[in-house]
């Protein structure tokens, strides 16, 4: 069953076409990878899905509901959560607070409730702190809960972004180059984390990644973009040998390495 459907998505920045007529269908509970050369429009594609950019044309359907035109926070409410290619944490806030912000949409506290410190609100707040802690534990950051986010090492920051995204209880999780800057060992751990997450949180995952080993290992479906257009789509085995993809993106070396 498809959960996310993208139809003829086009995005132009002035004269530059970053995405051209991209269509794809994402199956529920699948892991899909979007790959392609630098500047192919992958991140732009994510940005349109999450409402950061409005598509020039085309439509995005989440569970058959149109979500393009919505603001980013509305998209988040609909159940799409993401991480960022260039890490965007709330730097001066503590690690735990970062995750708590992730829960924003699920907290019911209102102005009056907070002002009068109603018991229900207090309870909700406590429960959310515990949940946040559990999520940190899940990605292996529990001992750092009171650190400032900006003091974390790069890899830890990436994991914190994931925990924060999970806190929103998303249906679809978008990961933009989660393994960038990680060494092969760390990448391995990440691979396992992603697979586990999908199971335990019942997620659909779309990821952008240049690390072919990771991509080939965990994704069921690959979409290849080049110059904003979809040049290939299919299972990892097929893509790996697709000459167009090799020429535009993989080169000869990567095939061996993966």
């Amino acid at each position, binding site marked *: 069953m498809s959960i996310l459907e993208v139809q003829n998505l086009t995005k132009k920045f002035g004269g530059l076409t970053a995405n051209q007529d991209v269509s794809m269908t994402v199956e529920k509970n699948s892991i899909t990878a979007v790959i392609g050369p630098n500047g192919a429009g992958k991140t732009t594609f994510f940005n349109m899905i999450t409402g950061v950019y409005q598509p020039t044309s085309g439509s995005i359907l989440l569970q058959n509901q149109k979500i393009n035109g919505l603001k980013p926070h509305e998209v988040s409410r609909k159940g799409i959560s993401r991480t960022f290619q260039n890490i965007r944490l709330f730097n001066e806030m503590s690690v735990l607070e970062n995750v708590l912000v992730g829960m924003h*949409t699920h907290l019911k506290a209102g102005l009056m409730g907070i002002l009068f410190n109603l018991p229900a609100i207090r309870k909700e707040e406590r429960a959310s702190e515990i949940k946040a802690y559990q999520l940190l534990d899940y990605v292996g950051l529990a001992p750092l809960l009171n650190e400032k986010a900006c003091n974390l090492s790069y890899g830890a920051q990436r994991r914190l972004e994931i925990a924060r995204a999970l806190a929103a209880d998303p249906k679809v999780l978008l990961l933009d180059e989660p393994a960038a800057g990680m060494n092969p060992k760390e990448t391995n751990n990440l691979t396992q984390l992603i697979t586990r997450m999908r199971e335990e949180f019942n997620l659909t995952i779309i990821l952008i990644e240049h690390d072919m080993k990771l991509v080939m290992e965990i994704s069921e479906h690959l979409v290849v973009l080049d110059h904003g257009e979809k040049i290939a789509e299919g299972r990892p085995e097929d893509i790996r040998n697709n000459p167009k993809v090799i020429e535009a993106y993989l080169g000869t070396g990567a095939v061996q390495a993966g």
Partner: protein
Amino acid sequence: MKTLWNKYKQNKMAHGIFLLIYICVSSLSLFMAQRSVTAFLLLLSSLLLLYFTNFKNLTKWLIAGIVLAFLLPFTASQGDAYQSYMEVATLVGIYIAMALGLNIVVGMAGLLDLGFVAFFAVGAYTYGIFATAQASNFMPFGTFPLSGESFWIFIIFGCLVAALFGILLGIPVLRVKGDYLAIVTLGFGEIIRIIFNNLDRPINITNGAMGIPSVTPPRLFGIDFLFPSQFYYIVLVILLFTIFTVRRFEHSKIGRSWKAVRENEIAAQAMGVPLVRTKLMAFAIGASFSGMMGVVFAAKQAFVDPTSFTLLESITILVMVLLGGMGSVPGVILGAAVMTILNLQVLTEITNWLNQLSMSGAISIPDALSPAKMQRLIFGLLLILFALYRPQGLLPAKNRIYDEKVLQEGSGQTVLGIATEQSQNEKLNVKEV
């Protein structure tokens, strides 16, 4: 020595005793030496000491309450300087509340606002106009001035009107970012001031530059509030409410969303934080404190005119926030107190003292350098020194520290994602550092 110090740091008893002695000595000296600003300041700084003790929050609040509500007024009340101390204390309270309001906007939500005094003005005029005959110029019904009893309702009214203006100002904010925002708010502040300065035509609403004199004093149970020592209590109550509110917000969903917006707008949105609403809320809530204090200010001065609401005033409040430590509630309180006391009392006293010296011939100063004119110079120097030596603010903002043990315990009883009903959350003990 060091170990002794460490021991002291951990020992609550020792803290308590030291604090008690300190408070006793300073209040006694204030009691005895009535003109002594030093004693007055020493007693006030007991609150700072209190802040650094490791008492429970409730204890701290209780002690602070006793000092502020009884000890300070009582010990000061014995002499002639009483009203002037209370005047300073009242103004300190007013500025603290405003600085706390601005702190929400600038410190927490990260929106640089250079027109903040406008909300104060709105509050002041709201009361000023209706508590004098001024309102009858444009209100065909009703008799004005309203009685002093209405003051209490006007506090709420001022709060609401200012919040409304906050939202009005907020609307341009939706598009303008960063330092551009600074200039938009600055423009807004100036626009408000100029309008108040000119609204004596075509209909006389604000009495223009002449200002509105003889504002009706507040009245409660037949008693008129005339002296600073009386306003002190009004301000104290509002201030407590303000601090309490700010604290609540700070560690709630709303406070977190402000900080998230400050740290990274795009990520905040992606986490479901609505940008517009969050910013507007910061503006409205920040403004509302100023609005309330504006009402009090109008009543206290018994006179409202536009010169009290200049750009320099907005900048001063901003400096209080920066000086204290952006986003830090205790810091901002300290910053506002330091700035106000410096400006109104310490500098005046210092220059008076220098002046006496020069008049009595102890030192000779050319007229151009007359100490009476040096207040701003000294103030400027102090600002520079403060900033250079405490660039993070006097008491920099700190994040709340969560107790890992309690969270772990809580986790034991919950399944990820679903908190069980009986989770013993109440035990969750959150410490502030």
